[in-house]
């Protein structure tokens, strides 16, 4: 069975790339053919019209597509990654920000307040608005930047300019001074730091510690008609996730991702992101965060709560209205049924979603311990 899937050159495409390039898909009888894409809009269009059966997609984009009555609904049967983004400022802008800092800039309240003062000073001097790049209107990058700024009393629609740029073009845009900074996924912030032109002000985890990031996206119609094929793909990706999450495989994974037809970047930059040990400025300062970019089997199961948080951000920033019909559609997009079926077929054990997962006996019910124990006899 052939499955064509698009990916954007980012470290969080790792699970999909490992599934294709390290045999996890082939072991499930799937010929997984990956295509590198230049823009999220292309990815969406090619998925919609059937050039791709599956895609590495921004979680918010999978959700917003499912809420658009003019388009085929998408499903996010598996989560590919959590976190992995950074907010980075260009060298000059960072130095100016630093002069406005009252305290440790690692604290998003301190950095936000400094940014607010910097914006006020620019406006007094008649300087133009600061411009920041992010990857898509429906993206965690957009929401992280806005969340951070709004918490400091900055209006992201009025006080700054946010522009959309695809991840691989962020560094060029910073070099040519089109933007003062950006929020983007790994490894692109590391590429800018390595080039000596930027300072990572924040990891995404400083703003939101568990931010849903990329999902596997498929058309809902395709998922229904190709349930067996999707089940195999899900199994392959669950296996690939365990492999990617194992620190012993980090070196090999970095080299897989570094290949010319994949990210086409030096393996050591990729390795930094996978390890969560990230150099944040050209002088060599490094920050460590084990949650920097999470590829983790425990996070693969879609969680409607995460999807609804993203939807709440779409409502907050007036991209979409809030209503029950949309809440249902968001929940359906993040349905865990495909994941659960794949896990059952992999482990040959019935699935008990009680947070314990014992091999036998009733599901644990914390509200009725006595009843649970009685049924366990």
């Amino acid at each position: 069975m052939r499955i064509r899937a698009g990916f954007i050159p980012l470290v969080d495409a790792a699970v999909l790339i490992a599934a294709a390039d390290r045999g996890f898909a082939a072991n499930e009888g799937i010929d997984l053919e990956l295509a590198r894409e230049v823009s999220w809009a292309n990815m969406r269009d090619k998925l919609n019209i059937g050039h791709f059966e599956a895609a590495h997609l921004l979680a918010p984009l999978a959700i917003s597509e499912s809420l658009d009555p003019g388009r085929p609904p998408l499903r996010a049967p598996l989560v590919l990654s959590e976190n992995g983004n950074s907010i980075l400022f260009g060298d000059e802008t960072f130095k100016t920000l630093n002069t406005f800092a009252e305290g440790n800039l690692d604290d998003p309240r301190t950095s936000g307040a400094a940014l607010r003062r910097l914006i006020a000073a620019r406006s007094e001097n008649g300087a133009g608005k600061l411009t920041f790049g992010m990857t898509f209107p429906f993206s965690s990058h957009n929401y992280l930047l806005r969340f951070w700024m709004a918490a400091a009393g900055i209006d992201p629609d009025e006080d700054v300019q946010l522009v959309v740029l695809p991840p691989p073009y962020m560094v060029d845009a910073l070099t040519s001074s089109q933007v003062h900074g950006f929020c983007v996924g790994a490894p692109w912030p590391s590429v800018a730091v390595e080039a000596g032109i930027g300072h990572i002000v924040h990891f995404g985890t400083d703003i939101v510690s568990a931010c849903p990031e990329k999902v596997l996206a498929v058309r809902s119609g395709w998922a229904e008609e190709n349930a067996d094929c999707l089940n195999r793909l899900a199994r392959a990706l669950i296996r690939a996730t365990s492999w990617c999450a194992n620190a012993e495989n980090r070196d090999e994974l970095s080299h897989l991702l570094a290949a010319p037809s994949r990210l086409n970047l030096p393996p050591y930059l990729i390795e930094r992101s996978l390890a969560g040990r990230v150099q944040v400025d050209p002088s060599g300062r490094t920050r460590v965060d084990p949650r920097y970019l999470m590829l983790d089997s425990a996070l693969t199961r879609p969680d409607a709560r995460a999807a609804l948080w993203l939807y709440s951000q779409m409502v907050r920033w007036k991209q979409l209205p809030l209503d029950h019909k949309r809440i249902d559609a968001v929940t359906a997009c993040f349905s865990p049924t495909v994941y659960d079926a794949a896990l059952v077929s992999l482990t040959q054990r019935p699935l008990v979603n009680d947070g314990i997962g014992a091999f036998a006996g009733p599901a644990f019910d914390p509200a009725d311990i006595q009843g649970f124990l009685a049924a366990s006899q």
Partner: protein
Amino acid sequence: MLRVLVVDQDPDRAEIVEKALRQDPNLSVEVATAGPGHLLDLLRTLEPDILIVDLDLPDRDMIEQLRVATREQPRPIVMFVDQSDSEAMKAAVGAGVSAYVVDGLTAGRVKPILDTAVARFQEFEKLRRELDIARTSLAERKLIDRAKGILMRARGLSEEDAYNLLRSKAMDEQKKVAEIAQSVITASELLK
């Protein structure tokens, strides 16, 4: 008079599209080969009614921002395919082109323009392939033919799909098509 802006990274292809569109006296046609980041400025200055872009243009995502943010752009932009049939979208994406229009413009006025662009994109792709073939030497062509045959048998592909696969692999890995063809042949001999 409708204002059409064609943005294409390939100046040769842009010229072909422009020439075809200029035959319609009711269109005013502008062409740009903007690099990433400059499209917003272009849109502000030229205020086109219809925007035709090549699919590989990284600025496509930036246009998506205009579809959402109305504060930034007083004239809301929609994707042409939002108001048309999916066949038109398939043809456009297949040819490597996409179109955006100012909200309120009827599909009837836009469709012939998009059709013209799609036809020219397809024609250009054919020309480019013929040129590719003419440029390769006879020996290389033989290698490519053998590799195509292997792929057609092993993967059940058409001749065209087999060639496209070799070509996209070559582009991905920044190698010549003949080199990829040689590795296909070597691999298939090893697997015999």
